[in-house]
């Protein structure tokens, strides 16, 4: 079958037509030396992306039976998808076409019409060269499993499970401890803006236990996971019985939480276990159990200092929830007795929610707020520098420290298993901080709660729901998944098995065949980013739609 190439030059109304000589472009293309033996159909159209234009194109392709198609038009960002969809309605494989940008890259950047015209001809010629090296690519459909593995049985994990569970979607919730729940069970009260009382959170635990679409595994850890969105093979292991369970799921939600920094590890904070220095968490627990603040000897303190931002200097980030919960603790203490003198030492107040400032102001007449630039602790003696530069010392009966939230210790282990990045602090990294804050670079793995950074209860719950939103819209029971077509492939004959590509792949899309000693691309996960192509020392990897010959043909003409 000989090649028949369709070349259509779009005028884009006056956008292209007024800045280049359309006729000359078409003439010059017809005269190309290296295409004189090929069958070419060269036409122009006022506006290919219009309803008219698309129909015109569809008819032209059907009538002519093109083997290749080149469209000289606007930026691929604008209409590449439009024309791929037109091709899909015809017999022409959509990957046998190429759009050439003669608008943003020719017509719109030159004031000299002749210069723009010449460039346009060369660009189109380059595209014509390239398109001859393109091969048809076919989309495949994969069955997908709609079930979900949720790692972590705290507030966040429970919310993710409840929001995504359904008749056609089972949730497997695993928790490494004996019981579900987290530190919220040790709180005396929630903040007023958190809307309700603690029983609501406790109720969620019963809800998840009673939901017939959710299966709970306590004392259980993730042993291994292999696969991709819609097709993860997981193995769970019960720590106590050593029993393993094999499951198939379509998505994973990481909700393994975080930890609190140990203030005794900080050089500026020196105290012994029997000093009256407590973390805010210890104080909260004290209140929730006995509803009374006492010193270690059982007496009520006469003076208490609350210290913000402990350890923040080393961590390099704000833990977000502490300013608010310290106000809550100040409220607790004041309720207990308004004879207890309360001083709060802070550098900045972080009150990012709309209700926080008002809540803070409720306590300002009952607490002595001191803004500082530096503070250190020895026993219960605080040495500090105030904002105005004065040094000062205070030795209250009791010191309460708000320590930072730090990444969970098993994050690196999970990161490796799930092939997900951690950020420089050790928290899980989002796919995109702003646009895609609860996805990860591995399709099908989502993150929620403090595992991705300091967060309060409402935020963690919202993040868990956002994960459910992604799952409910990406993994629809019965719907097939169509993976990316323009992926990489490794030529087995040339591969030497050095595994450089494995390390470089950000998506975990390459695996190693031990028997053959070669690396292989999993086309269902590959996104076609091309990192592996660049890293391969032997040139055995290429991407299907951007092969070296294709790129070379395009570039050589442009540089002629």
């Amino acid at each position: 079958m000989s090649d028949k190439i369709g070349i259509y030059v779009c005028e884009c109304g006056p956008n292209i037509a007024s800045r280049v000589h359309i006729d000359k472009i078409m003439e010059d293309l017809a005269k190309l030396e290296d295409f004189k033996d090929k069958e070419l159909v060269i036409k122009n159209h006022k506006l290919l992306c219009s309803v008219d234009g698309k129909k015109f194109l569809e008819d032209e392709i059907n009538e002519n039976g093109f083997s290749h198609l080149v469209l000289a038009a606007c930026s691929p960002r604008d209409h590449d998808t439009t024309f791929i969809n037109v091709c899909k309605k015809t017999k022409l494989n959509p990957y046998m076409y190429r759009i050439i940008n003669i608008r943003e890259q020719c017509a719109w950047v030159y004031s000299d019409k002749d210069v723009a015209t010449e460039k346009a001809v060369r660009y189109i010629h380059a595209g014509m060269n390239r398109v001859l090296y393109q091969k048809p690519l076919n989309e495949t459909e994969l069955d997908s499993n709609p079930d979900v593995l949720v790692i972590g049985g705290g507030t966040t994990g429970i919310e993710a499970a409840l929001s995504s569970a359904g008749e056609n979607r089972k949730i497997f919730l695993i928790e490494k401890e004996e019981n579900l729940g987290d530190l919220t069970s040790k709180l005396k009260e929630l903040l007023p803006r958190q809307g309700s009382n603690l029983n609501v959170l406790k109720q969620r635990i019963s809800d998840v236990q009673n939901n017939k679409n959710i299966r709970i595994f306590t004392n259980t850890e993730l042993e291994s996971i292999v696969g991709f969105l819609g097709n993860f093979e997981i193995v769970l292991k019960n720590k106590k019985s050593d029993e393993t369970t094999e499951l198939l799921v379509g998505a994973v939600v990481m909700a393994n939480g975080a930890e609190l920094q140990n203030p005794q590890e900080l050089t500026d904070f020196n105290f012994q276990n029997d000093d009256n220095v407590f973390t805010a968490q210890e104080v909260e627990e004290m209140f929730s159990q006995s509803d009374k603040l006492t010193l270690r000897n059982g007496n009520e303190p006469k003076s208490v200092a609350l210290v913000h931002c402990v350890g923040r200097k080393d961590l390099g980030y704000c833990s977000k929830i502490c300013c608010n919960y310290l106000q809550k603790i100040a409220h607790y203490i004041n309720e207990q007795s308004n004879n207890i003198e309360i001083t709060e030492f802070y550098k900045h107040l972080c009150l990012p929610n709309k209700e926080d400032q008002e809540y803070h102001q409720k306590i300002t007449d009952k607490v002595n707020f001191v803004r500082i630039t530096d503070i250190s602790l020895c026993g219960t003696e605080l040495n500090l520098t105030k904002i105005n530069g004065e040094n000062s010392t205070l030795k209250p009966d009791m010191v309460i420290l708000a320590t930072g939230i730090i990444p969970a210790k098993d994050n690196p282990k999970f990161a490796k298993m799930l092939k997900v990045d951690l950020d420089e602090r050790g928290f899980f990294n989002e796919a995109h901080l702003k646009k895609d804050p609860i996805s990860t670079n591995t399709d099908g793995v989502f993150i929620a709660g403090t595992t991705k950074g300091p967060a309060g209860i409402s935020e963690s719950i919202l993040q868990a729901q956002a994960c459910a939103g992604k799952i409910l819209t990406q993994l629809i029971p019965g719907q097939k998944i169509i993976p990316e077509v323009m992926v990489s492939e490794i030529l087995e004959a040339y591969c030497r098995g050095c595994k450089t590509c494995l390390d470089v792949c950000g998506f975990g899309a390459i695996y190693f065949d031990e028997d053959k000693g070669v690396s292989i691309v999993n086309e269902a996960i590959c996104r076609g980013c091309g990192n592996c192509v660049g890293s391969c020392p032997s040139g055995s990897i290429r991407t299907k739609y951007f092969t070296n010959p294709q790129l070379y043909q395009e570039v050589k003409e442009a540089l002629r």
Partner: protein
Amino acid sequence: MNKGIKLEGEIRKSILDFFEKTLSNNTFDAVLMPMMVPSEDSYAWILVKDKNLLKDAEPIVPIMPINAAKALKRYTRIGDGKFKIAALMKPCEIRATIELVKLNQIKLDDVTLFSYDCVGALPMQDFIAEPQKKGTLFDKLLKEQIYNSDETKPVCQICDKFSNCASDLHFAFENGNVVLISNSEKGDKTVTKMKFSPNIDLKNWQNNIDALATDKKKNRAETFELVKKMAEGFDNLSETFALCINCHNCSSVCPICYCRKCYFDSAVAKPNSDVKMMRAKQRGGIALPLDKIMFHTGRMAHMSLSCVSCGLCSDACPVNIPVAQIFSYVASQTQKTFDYVAGENAGDALPMKEYKLDEMGELGEMVKKAEVQESHNE
């Protein structure tokens, strides 16, 4: 500091006796060692199973016919290897082995690596021309422990990593004695199996080696100043590689160039006639075959981060281009950029495998600085 074990006898005999014992008592199932070829003008690597053949082996050879790492690779790349083998090689061959381990071409699970204090190797062509004379010369260097002879290959003359390395065990030479040193757990296991008790102090030996290394480092720096003029800039490269006949021998013998089909031999790197004509049009004329310098700079880009300066490339060049010195110089620069030294430690990750987002920022700064510098100089 480690202590060593004294072995009885002069160098050749004591090493062969040692390996014979290891084969007798099943410490090892086989030993990889060089042996002279029948024509007596070269050596080959033999995997020796029968201990009786060992008497004909030559543990310390005057030349490097192939890089031992390549020989080892042939054995270990595929297959589970349930047999314990010992491999005795020069320090640069050990370094090449370490790099090949990182590139997944060699598995060391059942291999115990041995190295020795290396006086260097003689240029292949010199040896082949007069094998007996050169053989005698080499014996003298070895006996008199001369580490800086100008009879050895140019890269050997500037090599400061000629002694202990990332092997499991090392034969140290001191005052005519052979002292075996263990460098690793695997080495310790061998020592135990052989029922040795390390009791020789190594301080004097180490000091001697350090002093020699310092001298060689100075030599290296001086030599690189000269090599720089041959290697930097397209014009210099063109002149240096003017004699190159595109035989690609250098890449064939290089232990790091292990690709099944070299990129530069593949169709991708061979453009068709209209491209060639286009280039001829642009420049007035082109040399055929194309891309001679591209091959060398491309090879530098592909392997210089792992180059161990073994010098085989110069040995293999039929037109005597000092390839090894040039590549050794370039490698020293590229490795420095990434804070990496090839062959030191199997645990160091290859720079290509450790992509850090910030890295590119540093390189960008370096490029900017270099550009500013250049414009200053102009």
